């Protein structure tokens, strides 16, 4: 680890000011991604601005549309929240599938979305549910938020404060874990509203989370695992690596989509 300054502001405005004053400073939330990077000397921020003391970023609240989850809410809290489970049980399921207990008790929703790892779980839920990412500056729709591998619409120093998840008729998440890292090799979140079905895929795409529109269209008219039987996902845009070819990932996406629909119906 290289040396850095450590700041723990008590107000959002102070955090924003610190980040504005020092473009080389970085936000610290749960540290589950950032700290390993620092330990391996893969990043050299001048300062870490720890969000831990900021008020109002750790709440889970029922809203008229669904649930609002603060950026600092830990994965374990989402997994076990009665509010989330009542409104969008699939989201609680997803949070319970992230990493291991230690990671779930440190890692945060905001950190996961800011990092936008192409194999992370939350992006699938945010995109499928068409959630809104709220920052200290603005609200960003899911469709605009994800912009590729580890790339989001966030500007320099912009702080995610919460995410608004709308409630849907039915939703389900199925994850195929990478055998080594246990991140998603194919994670599919299916969300059904009155007039549409959105199918978001993480872990498999070459440029991060994406919507599988053909699957959504078919499911909109027939919301059943069987409806997906004839559909094939084109592997051209999928990842290929040590753990599996693009063809294999295409198969996994399909299999997980079927399982996600089955879960949504359960």
């Amino acid at each position: 680890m290289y040396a850095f300054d450590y700041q723990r502001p008590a107000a959002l405005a102070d955090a924003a000011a610190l980040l504005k004053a020092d473009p080389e400073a970085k936000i610290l939330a749960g540290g589950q991604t950032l700290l390993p990077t620092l330990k391996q000397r893969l990043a050299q921020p001048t300062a870490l601005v720890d969000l831990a003391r900021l008020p109002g970023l750790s709440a889970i609240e029922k809203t008229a549309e669904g649930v609002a989850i603060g950026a600092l809410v830990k994965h374990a809290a989402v997994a076990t929240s009665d509010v989330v489970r009542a409104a969008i049980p699939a989201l609680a399921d997803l949070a319970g599938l992230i990493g291991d207990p230690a990671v779930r008790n440190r890692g945060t929703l905001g950190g996961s979305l800011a990092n936008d790892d192409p194999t992370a779980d939350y992006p699938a839920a945010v995109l499928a549910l068409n959630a809104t990412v709220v920052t200290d500056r603005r609200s960003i729709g899911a469709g605009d938020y994800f912009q590729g591998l580890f790339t989001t619409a966030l500007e320099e120093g912009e702080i995610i404060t919460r995410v608004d998840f709308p409630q849907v008729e039915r939703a389900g998440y199925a994850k195929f874990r990478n055998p080594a890292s246990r991140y998603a090799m194919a994670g599919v979140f299916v969300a059904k509203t009155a007039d549409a079905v959105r199918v978001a895929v993480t872990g498999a795409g070459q440029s991060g989370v994406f919507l599988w529109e053909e699957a959504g269209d078919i499911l909109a008219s027939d919301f059943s695992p069987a409806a997906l039987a004839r559909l094939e996902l084109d592997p051209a845009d999928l990842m290929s690596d040590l753990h599996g070819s693009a063809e294999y990932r295409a198969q996994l996406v399909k299999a997980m989509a079927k399982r996600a629909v089955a879960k949504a119906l359960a």
Partner: protein
Amino acid sequence: MNDSTVTPIGAAVRRKEDQRFITGKGRYTDDLSRPGQAFAYFLRSPHAHATIRGIDTAAAKAMPGVVGILTGADLAADKIGDLICGWLVTSKDGTPMHMGSHPALAKDKVRYVGDHVAVVIAETLDAAKDAAAAIAVDYEVLPAVADLAAADAGAQIHDNAPRNISYEWELGDKAATEAAFARAAHVTKIDLVNNRLAPNAMEPRAAIGEYDAGDEAYTLWTTSQNPHVARLVLSAFVGIAPEHKLRVIAPDVGGGFGSKIFIYAEETVCTWAAKKVGRPVKWTADRSEAFLSDAHGRDHISHAELATDAAGKILGFKVHTRANLGAYMSTFSSCIPTYLYATLLSGQYAIPAIHCEVDAFYTTTAPVDAYRGAGRPEATFLVERIMDKAARELAIDPAEFRRRNFVTQFPHQTPVIMNYDAGDYGASLDLALEMADYKGFPARRAEAEARGKLRGIGLSNYIEACGIAPSAAVGSLGAGVGLWESAEVRVNPTGNVEVLTGSHSHGQGHETTFAQLVSARLGIPIDQVSVVHGDTDKVQFGMGTYGSRSGAVGMSAIVKALDKVEAKAKKIAAHILEAAEGDIEFKDGRFTVAGTDRSLAFAEVALNAYVAHKFPTSEIEPGLKEGAFYDPTNFTFPAGCHICEVEVDPETGVTRIVNFTAVDDFGVVINPMIVEGQVHGGIAQGVGQALLEGVTYDADGQLVTGSYMDYTMPRADDLPSFKLGLTQTRCPSNPLGIKGCGEAGAIAAPAAVINALADALGTQDVPMPATPAKVWALAKTRAVRQAAE
């Protein structure tokens, strides 16, 4: 069974050391700090193969906190010798193996990613890393040789090893084997890759070197499985200090699996550098360094053929193996793919003729050496895979085909050196078949098929050789050392006992089993016995722990010392009890005059031995302390039958192990709980090799599986609850009848798992690790094949 009882052999005594380990009170090398210590960081090669044109350390030396920077040139100036391989293998044409120069810090060339280029010693680890980044190394990059299959065609890695070959070795009778094949009714052929594994001990390697200028003596604390051997190599070969001026301490060590047998560059450099910089020098590997530089295991490519007659009896077996040595020959690397491998190719079977050729290649990858099982897993995998394939080709049930070919008479001389002394392979097969409900398998398969799943069942009837080994025998095969073990039993005046052993415990539970042995023998409570190991200043000498030798060899040495203690104590007791020595019986901790009620407790005799008032010291020396060196007369031959049942999800390629049965014959079992633990761990690593683990280098020789993000370690949820059983034939060659249990799981499991998958998928071409992606592709091919039929 609690601490204050006498613990018989065969009792499941709780591990004495666990309280310390699970409450964080263990003392591992990295827990230790020496006054004034500085920290070492090794600058490692980023290239798989390159010439070093120059190293400029000037700027780095000027960085804050730097204590010293040393390179291969400094080693050479101090006339420090190369790291060595201690077992000389001779090629079939009579030439000795070509051992490439292996300096602890590179001299003119680097030969794998992670090779040691320079050491930076600084006030803090961060300062050392900062300075390392400022060292300018001028590399001329050479082509990598990452592919074992094409290593002979690659760029030459060592000047003295043309075609990158260290040796081309053979074992067995070629002519007799060819003759057997000429008579064969059927020949089964198989091509197999035995995947390369990273050892992944929980505790990474670490070392602290210290120099005492007053005594002109060094101390090295290190993560070693054999501290005396480390001292011997560092003094006699590397030449850091004379043996009596070097103390090596291996304190608590958190797992080794073989990888901590070897003498590595890092501890060599830390010891040498301690005098050069005048400070204790500490180094601890991080996990990335462990992946890069711990010696890996396995890595074979083999072709094998099995000849059978019309009755399904094996006539002959021939094998050709390419073995990967990596960039340098590690301490025992030469004997693993030769004498620890080809000597087990007879398996549990009576095979009249065997011929095996092994070509060992250098590649620009990390050195390869012993890893849990060391040669025997590779042999078992080959034998048990081809047995299954042959059975299927001959349309004989795989269990029946094995049974038909079992060795049933003992001793049995195989055509490949080994002389099996005892076993009952039919007994372990029968018990395993019953425990695994082999008969009920077809019904389970049909039920799984109805759920859309593919079920398969696979056997692995392994045999291995433990208790390495009779010194003269291994000497005649090229070993540079004898492989006996030593023990000293020190009875204190108050009657408690210290056992000093040359074995080294790094997870095996010696503090319990060795104490259990002494407790049972002397009739004293187990908490009155402590086991001392791992320090060359305390323990006389020792060859260390590997190859499941601590029971069969290490404990035999303790038995020998206990025999002497008992004999002397009887003499003393005879004087005190005023009886003839021949009339003294020793039982349950008491010396009794036969046929009387006159007796003394062990502790009373111990006290008298030191007080020395009641016996003539002209005849009997005072004191009660005896040492022994035990040299085994044969290897021991644990064997058994493991049966794996898998269920494959053809939609995702996920393999679930639904049943795993292991029936082992380990001879006499001292502590069944500890033995179970060894079997569990071994199976986990065997399943890891079969389904999960595989070290991968890319074409440029970069390590792709350099972290747990890509290297799949077995986790608890990858494994079922194992069903374990024991059969027993006593080992006739050692006093306790022990065979050894530390590696059986890792040896047996891979073939059982892959045979089960081959059964499920209807193909013999199942590669390791059989990851979901590969299994999915095979399941898809199966479906296409079935549709066509």
